[in-house]
């Protein structure tokens, strides 16, 4: 039974990833502006010869699909963009960036990945801890002061776009002399690791605060409503009737049960968090995937955009898979 559930989930995730890979291919053949022309952006005097060379270099002169239909009828072309794309993608080869001086997209992504992981990992961690505690407490003491203000604040934060929060924090941060852009003081040389970390930390403060504030609201709201729902369940009522201490009920029954839907929601929410990533990073000039996305969009760097989309989609699928598996592990009812 258990094995069956895991296999089914894995199968769905694999199928979804495959679909994403196909979708990605189709999507980027539809992009406006021809890529070879964009390779030479800002260069007005591009010759046809040069364009041809570029097309050949980037494999853009091959037919798009293996089946070619033209005046000569229908035929099969082994050299086509689709097959090349599939083979390359399977090997983790995402092609070359058009504008980032011909670097491999995989390298560009790897470079930009860890700043984003750092920023959002920290922000998420803080938001989860604070959000869940706040939500649990508000739900438990429904109608209390913490609930009233906490819930109000949560709803407000939830309604605030990340970048607006970011702009306000830039306003405040600049006033007290906090660094408001970048991840490290550019080009600084550090006497030791300690100084480097200190610098990193100072730069992290505002963006992490933005991410955390942006997420706390959502998590607190979800946790609160889960708790509220859980404590109306029979067994909690029973426990209360039996005279168990409130703290014990909260800790042993309500929170673990409320945690389930909340955790899976956090995983599902990952896709939305990414939207925040893009704007927070832009506001703080943070050298992560978000700024990379906007830069790539601005310069129509298709291979990079394609890579970002693939990476983010697959991350979300895997996060969902993980949530499903954890859910299945904890809640025997879904395992059938």
């Amino acid at each position, binding site marked *: 039974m258990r094995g069956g559930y895991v296999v089914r989930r894995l199968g769905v995730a694999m199928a979804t990833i495959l679909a994403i890979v196909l979708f990605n291919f189709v999507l980027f053949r539809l992009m406006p502006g021809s890529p070879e022309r964009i390779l030479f952006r800002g*260069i007005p*005097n591009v010759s046809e010869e040069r364009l041809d060379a570029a097309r050949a270099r980037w494999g853009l002169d091959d037919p798009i699909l293996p089946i070619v239909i033209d005046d000569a009828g229908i035929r099969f072309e082994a050299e086509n963009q689709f097959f090349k794309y599939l083979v390359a993608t399977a090997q983790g080869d995402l092609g070359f960036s058009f504008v980032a001086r*011909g670097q491999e997209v995989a390298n560009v992504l790897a470079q930009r990945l860890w700043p984003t992981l750092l920023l959002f990992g920290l922000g998420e961690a803080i938001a989860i801890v604070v959000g869940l505690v706040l939500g649990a407490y508000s739900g438990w003491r429904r109608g209390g002061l913490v609930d009233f203000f906490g819930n109000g604040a949560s709803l407000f934060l939830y309604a605030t776009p990340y970048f607006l929060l970011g702009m306000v924090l830039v306003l405040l941060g600049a006033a007290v002399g906090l660094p*408001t852009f970048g991840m490290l*003081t550019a080009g600084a040389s550090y006497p030791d690791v300690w100084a480097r970390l200190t610098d990193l930390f100072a730069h992290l403060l505002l963006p992490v605060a933005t991410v955390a504030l942006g997420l706390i609201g959502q998590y607190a709201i979800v946790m609160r409503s889960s708790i509220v729902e859980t404590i109306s369940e029979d067994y909690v009522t029973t426990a209360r009737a039996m005279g168990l201490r409130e703290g014990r009920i909260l800790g042993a029954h309500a929170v673990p049960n409320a945690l389930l839907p909340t955790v899976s929601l956090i995983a599902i929410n990952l896709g939305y968090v990414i939207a925040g990533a893009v704007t927070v990073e832009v506001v703080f000039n943070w050298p992560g995937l978000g700024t990379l996305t906007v830069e790539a969009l601005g310069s129509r760097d298709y291979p990079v955009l394609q890579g970002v989309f693939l990476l983010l989609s697959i991350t979300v699928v895997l996060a969902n898979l993980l949530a499903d598996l954890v859910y299945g592990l904890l809640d025997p009812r879904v395992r059938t």
Partner: protein
Amino acid sequence: MRSSIRARLAAIAATVGLILAGLAPTVAPTLAQTEPLVIRAGTDQDLQVLNPFNSILVVDFEVFTLNYDLLVNFGPDLEPVPGFAETWDVSDDGLTWTFKIREGMLWSDGEPATSEDARYTFQLALDADALSQESEDGYYLGAGYLEPYLLNAGLTAVSAPDPETLVVETAFPNTLLLQAYMPILPKHIWSSYTIDDIANYSDTPFLNEPPVVGTGPYQAVEWQAGEFIRFARNPNYWGDEGAAEEVIILTFESSDTMVQALTTGQVDYVRGVQPAQFDALANEPDIETVEGISNGYSEIAFNTKGNTEGYGGSTSALTDPAFRDALAWAVDQERLVEVTLGGYGVPGDSIVPPFHTRWYSPPENPRSFDIAEANRRLDAAGYERGGDGIRLDAEGRPITLRVTWPDSEAEHETDAQFLQEWWGELGIGVDAYQTEEGKLLEDLVPPVSGGPANFDIELWGWVGDPDPTSLLNVLRTEEIGSFSDSFWSNARYDELFLEQRAEADEDARFEMIKEMQEIAYEEAPYIIMYYDAELHAYRTDKFGGWRNQPTEGGTPLFGYGSGGYNTLTDLNAEPTPGPTDPTSPTAGPTPAPSGSGSGDGGGDSTPLILGIVGLVVVAAGALLLMRRRSAAAEDE
């Protein structure tokens, strides 16, 4: 129980507040004692290029003139000064130039720098030109912006009879050779690459990644593409050295963070300030703002081929100079400067900006902003109004012009709104929208190069060189399919271009350039909207010796060449007693140099780390306490 948890939460909140409040002013990246003296310059342009031939943007030129010398550099007032060559001489017929290369000069890697390097570099341009003659579509080194400097000077042959002598032959006498933006490259490095690698034609393009070897004052040693380039001092530099040990050029996504970085001291110099920010910066302490005169313009460019065979314009009216002239009467340049540029710029007229004091010639019969006159001219030219008040073209179709601009120049949105208003009063519809830059570049390609020329009017700009040749070049017939984005063609203009290029006498050359400006103004393939000012700002508490280039209306950096870096002085070089250092808000002994980026005078951020660690401990402790408490309660 209830109250106790609340009290604890309140206590934690209070602690957090206290810690943050106490910490805030001390938080700053302090690298003071250990860091070399660095000048950080911020720009809103991307840093994607280290191979000079791929240069397009102003920052690209800034980067390569830090790395390399030109054969002849640009002086404080753009006059020719020694560069790679120390002296030069021209033969009586003006055709043979002899340059003396500095004796004993070394590349930054210690190899001798000789005339052979210069010969190699110039030969690259000749080779590219030869390849270009063979090929139907031409052959360009990288972006193709550099070799025209030599080719327009009529370069025909170059030789290096001895290590200190370079002989250059030109087809006609001129002074353009002394204004050539061509970096002299180290042959011992570059000659191991093919011209296709260098010109970016091959599969293995030469990117010239750090460490770069050059003879310029600073050499690129670290490059985070799209983030920053770090330059270290060239140990073998031949000229006067500036105070900065390192130069870092940074890219900013938004001018907002860039300006804040300046006010907090995280950068020392910024280019690309917005008007409102410029106003505000003028009142900041320790910051100097510079309004430079632009050597360039923003124009309303017409697709002057309209809807003729293969061209994608929407109406034949675009081809009619009288039509374009009439529209130009309904453009209030002064208003555009006031609103779009926030007053920082000059209303435009000629295709040669007033920056070129020697070459600028205001039109003899200037147009004024006069809607009634514009209407009269349209009536006279036969563009009658249709039933709905919209004027009709020669084919009897209502004229609605598509006006577009690249998303990289979003400020033209304001210009477009004005055009919509003004031309609306003439009975000309305006359909205004922004186009993604890559897409627009593609739309601008004319049929001769296999493109659609699919636009009516685009708003964009050009930036020129110390010599006006490159700006004049844009409107030549020969440039259709290349630089020309108006597809305008005028035989007299083309003829004058070649004549002025080969004219060594300045007065005679001025007369030619003047006539060219007149023709372009009359026929109006471009309506010049304005000459945008260059808005820069820099800090005055770390470096001194800022010098505008040119002295009148120039800017210290991002001008022509790297001279601006070489005159910088370290304001904190002498250990001065406290009172004489008014820039430091924190009294007491501040060790120099103050490499600290922050405006609060820096400070140790160890308290921050300690504070955060403390915070975590407190929070963890509180949680643990809560947990213990409830467990204890359970046990009771």
